[in-house]
Every structure is written in C-alpha cells, then in structure tokens.
C-alpha cells in the first residue's frame, strides 16, 4: 500500500472508529470485503476501435483486471446527535496499468433533531425518485444506474433539514455548498427540495431544484401498488437548463487540433419515465420501464456524429495517422454527454429469487437505432458470503451508438464477505 494511501486509510479508520466508539449508546460497526475480477473485451467497432487500429495506444482501451475493495461502516449516537460513516478502500490492477489504490468516504455526517425537524451535515447519500433503470428526479445523488454489482455510491456534501409526520415528509437540501459555482453535473452547488405524501396505495413525490448555474427544475413522481403482484411507477421532470456536451459546429467533418466536444447546455427540456414491476408467489419478478431523456444527444446529433466518424475514417492515409486517430478518439467524448446515450430507452428485467439463488437477465434497448445492452447475472447469498457472476454485452447494428461504445463485453465474478 502506498504511504499516502496508508495515511488516508488510517485516517478513514480513525474517523470511523470515532464515529462508532465514542461514549455512545450501541455503537455499531459492520463492513464487507469484496474481491472482484473483470474480463473486458474491447469493441472492434466504434471510434476508439478505429483510432486504435490506425494508431495503437491513442486512447486507453478497456482491459481486464482485478479489484479489491473493503467497505467499512460505523454509526453511533451521543446525546441525541448521530454520527455515521461509510468508507471504502480500493485497490485495482488492470492489464497494461500499474496498481492503483484509493480510499474515500461514501458517507460521513452528523445528524440530530430540534423543534420537530431532523438535520444532517456532511457527506451523505440523498437518493430520491422512483424507478430502476433511470431516475429523472434523483438530482442530489445522481446515482449511476444499472451497475454490474450493487455498490454503495459516494455521497454528496450536503446540509439537510427534514420534517416527518405520519404520512408526509418534507426535505430541504443544500448540496455541494463547498463546490465552485462553475462545477458541472452532480457537482453543481444547488438547493433542492422534496415533498412526499402517502395516500394509501399511492406514494406521491414532488421535487424542485435550483442550481447556481443551470437554474430551476421541477418534477413529480408517483408509485402505485395496483394489486397483490403489481407495482406501477412514473416520474417526470422539467429543466430550464441542463449540462451536456456538444460538438463545435466549426469542426464540421474535418480534422481539428483540439477536442471539438465541449461543455454545453440544453434549454427547456424534460425527462420522463414510466414502468412497473410484477412479482408472483414463486418470487419471479418482471420489471419493465420506458423513459425519455431530453438531456441526451438527439437523433440528429448522433446522425451527425456517425457521419463525422465515417468521414474521419476516409481520411486515413490522406492525413497524418496521429491526427486522424486523435480526432476519432475525441468522438468517444460524446458518450459522456448524458447519463443516457439515446433519448428514448426501453428496459426489461426478469429476475428470480429461489432460495439462496438470484438469477436475472435484463435488456436495455434504444429504439432509435436498435442498440442494446444485454446483462445476465447469477447471485448466491449465504450467511456471510455472497457470490456474484455475470456478463454484459453491448450490441446492435454497426451504426447504433450502443454498438460503438469502447467495451464490447464484460464478464465478472465477485465474492463479498460481510462482517
């Protein structure tokens, strides 16, 4: 372990120990260790593959490797004040790279209550909204969805005030107060609010956010248990402005000297999701969702992206290969424009809980270009040990965006030991 990481790990451990070991009622410690192996196959299609074929090493390609992770949790209460922390220490080594280690707090916050309100301050996971594949109104945490393994996300710096009664909850959050006003995406300083109302079989949620740079957005969500086996949910959000990436119009189809994909914003747009879950007595469960994300690049933008990629390919042999390869690699920047690649998405997940076994298969399908992601997984849960294995395959026609992402296939196996 590098000295700097060792120091940080020791500091994390000391902070967690403080959270749990102070003179307090029932301090609690728990955690997990998780070794994981990832076998990744780089895509033979798409801009990074084309760049690498022309000039190997232009951009790093997905590689296989191992990840070791320790997650430690501690919590305690002292005189009405709660202390809680979750820390992660991670070391990973991928083919062609040196071992990389880092440590971070997922959560570290104090909480308490006064005058009927609950307050928290620190780094905390504040996760909102309904939905599985996409959550339009999860605008505090902005959790990455559809991960291969269940992971604890890294919380955001927040100050929260919450009020609960039997069926209503109010939450106000100042998020990223320590960040710069020009920080983007989930790092943007913002004020956010949620009101929740329980009405029998219906859960109603109302959301509002004001970002220092992107301004206002508002949304609503509902979850409805329609019967013994069926749950339906929907969520929608309107945004005055949202962060995205856009290509410099001056780039055209030719070679440029700097990455033409630059931060941009999209105005007066929305996001919406509808879905439902059906579960039977045998614990077979089918989840179906459809969503639209106005912050993702539009069809015309992806058509232009495909056209530019094809044109750059024709320049091979006519222009310096480094320049063509570099321009092709920059095309991959578009994959980071939004949490969804295409605006319209369909998702289905079939899972089964049978004794200790949890097999599942899911498909994300983009109707605009027939791109798809297929994931199959199998979990086994023991008293302290959990084993997960699975595979994810990206595919579709050659022009489909999902068929051109850097990774073609991921196979993984992970063991989790909890204590």
């Amino acid at each position, binding site marked *: 372990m590098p000295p700097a990481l060792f120091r940080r790990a020791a500091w994390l451990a000391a902070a967690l120990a403080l959270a749990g070991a102070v003179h307090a009622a029932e301090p609690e410690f728990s955690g997990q260790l998780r070794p994981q192996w990832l076998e990744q196959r780089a895509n033979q299609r798409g801009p990074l593959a084309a760049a690498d074929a022309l000039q190997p090493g232009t951009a790093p390609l997905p590689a296989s490797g191992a990840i070791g992770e320790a997650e430690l949790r501690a919590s305690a209460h002292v005189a009405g004040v709660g202390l809680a922390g979750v820390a992660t220490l991670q070391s990973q080594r991928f083919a062609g790279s040196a071992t990389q280690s880092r440590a971070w707090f997922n959560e570290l916050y104090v909480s308490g209550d006064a005058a009927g309100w609950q307050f928290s301050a620190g780094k905390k996971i504040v996760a909102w909204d309904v939905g599985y594949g996409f959550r339009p109104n999860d605008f505090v945490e902005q959790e990455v969805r559809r991960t291969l393994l269940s992971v604890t996300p890294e919380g955001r710096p927040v100050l929260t005030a919450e009020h609960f009664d039997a069926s209503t909850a109010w939450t106000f959050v100042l998020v990223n107060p320590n960040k710069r006003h020009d920080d983007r995406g989930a790092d943007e300083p913002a004020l956010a609010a949620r009101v929740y109302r329980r009405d029998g079989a219906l859960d109603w949620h109302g959301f509002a956010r004001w970002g220092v740079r992107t301004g206002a957005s508002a949304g609503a969500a509902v979850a409805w248990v329609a019967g013994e086996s069926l749950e339906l949910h929907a969520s929608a959000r309107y945004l005055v402005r949202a962060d995205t990436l856009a290509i410099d119009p001056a780039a055209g189809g030719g070679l440029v000297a700097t990455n033409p994909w630059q931060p941009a914003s999209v105005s007066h747009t929305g996001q919406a999701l509808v879905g439902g879950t059906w579960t039977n007595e045998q614990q077979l469960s089918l989840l179906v969702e459809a969503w639209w994300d106005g912050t993702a690049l539009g069809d015309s933008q992806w058509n232009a992206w495909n056209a530019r990629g094809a044109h750059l390919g024709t320049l091979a042999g006519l222009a310096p290969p480094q320049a063509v390869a570099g321009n092709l690699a920059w095309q991959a920047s578009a994959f980071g424009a939004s949490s969804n690649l295409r605006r319209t998405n369909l998702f289905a997940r079939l899972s089964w809980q*049978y004794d200790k076994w949890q097999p599942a298969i899911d498909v994300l399908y983009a109707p605009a270009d027939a791109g798809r992601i297929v994931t199959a997984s199998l979990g086994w849960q023991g008293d302290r040990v959990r084993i997960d294995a699975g595979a994810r395959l990206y595919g579709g026609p050659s022009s489909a965006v999902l068929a051109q992402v850097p990774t073609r296939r991921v196979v993984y196996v992970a063991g989790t030991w909890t204590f």
Partner: protein
Amino acid sequence: MKTTQCLAAGVLAALGAFAAPLAVAQDVPTLLKAADKYRMSSENMQVDTLISVFNTDGSPDKERRYTVFAQAKHQSLVLMQSPAEKGQKVLMLGDDFWLLMPSSQRPLRITPMQKLLGDASTGDIATLSWAEDYSGTVAGEEGCGEPAQKCLRLSLAANRKGVTYQRIELWIGKAKSEPIKADLYVQSDKLAKQARFVMDKPSAPTAVTEMLLRDQLTNKKETQVRYVSRREKTVPEAWLNPMFLARNPALD
C-alpha cells in the same frame, strides 16, 4: 371501513354458526386475542427475533436476526441485523409496504407479493397478531400437540389483503387458548407453511418462545423463529413514515 370489517366478521361468524354448532358457544375474537397474548403482550412492542433455517435433512442452512417494532393499527418496522442483510429495513403499514436497501438509502415501495421473501417472510416475523387481521369460526374440537391435549380448531380468513396469509387453520389449547399449530395459506389458497408453536412452560404457558415453520410451497425447509427478547416500546410517529427509513435513529 371498520363497520364493513365488523359486518364481514359478523357474517362469517354467523355462517360458521350454521356450519359448526360449536361456534355459537365460542367467541372467536376473544379466543384470538387470548392466543395473541402469548406472542404480543402489549399493543406496541420491540421484539428481537432469531431465524434459523434448516435443510430437509436437518442440517443448518442459514441464520438471520431481526429487530421488529410491532405497533398498533397493523404497523411494523423490521430492521435486518444479520451481516448478510445489515441495514435493510421493511416498513409495513396495513396493506402497504416499503423496503430500504442500505446501499441506496432510497425507500422503495413493494407489493405484498414482494414481502413474501425467503424462508421466513417479513410477514412471518412482523405479524404477531391474529385478532386484528383475521375473523372466522371454531371449526371443531380435536386433540393436538405433544403431549396431546384438547384443542379448538379455528378456521380464519383475512380481513384485509395485505396480510401474508389469506387463510389460516389455527389450533389453540382449549383450556388456555395458547397457539399449538397452524396451517398457513397464501392468496391462491395453496398451503404455504405449517407452523408449530413452542411455549415457555408447556404445563403453564405464558409466552411463545419459538415458532417452527415447515415450507410446503417450495423447498420443504424448516424455519425456526425464536423470540429472543420482547419489551414494550412505542416508536415515534416519524419512524413509521416511509421516507424516514433512510434515516438512522438511535434505537435505545
């Protein structure tokens, strides 16, 4: 709603009276209240429960620990305490259910079918009262238990949709109304589990110490539900708000 339930219970009781003359002499709600006292001595309780699952050959399969805050008006909060499930919470408010997974900190609405998870469903753990949720008739008097004793057999139907078992055949001691055994049926009227109750003092029972569940629906495994500790506890109203699941209050 309450009137409708009372009416339904009355109609069922009346129907039962035609089917079984014994029912005329027996007050089922009173019998159920008496049987409930052996598991839940107060309306609002904190119960620590240890679940042990055994394979069909008797070998141990898995073990889980739960803290249950069973409150009046069909309200229960279940905190999972085992390493494999630590941080998970299930809130049951009548027919409505929510689940919180610790990695997400996002309360999730679930269906009644989704709470029927595992060898001991959260319904088995959190539902400690029959009197509020079921009505029915005394179907007969027969010998049951070990050693054999005179028992009353109660045929019970759920008063509401959200309970885990829609029909229960329950045998209680005739003299002291302590629960002896039960057949538990799910919505489709399939026999899901058979339960046996172990008392603290068989000759003078005061409390159920264990419930033994034999799965009849899938794997035939036996689940031992041990009530490790019970104490009276009324939780703050806020704890029973689904969004409060994401908070981490001191449990005392």
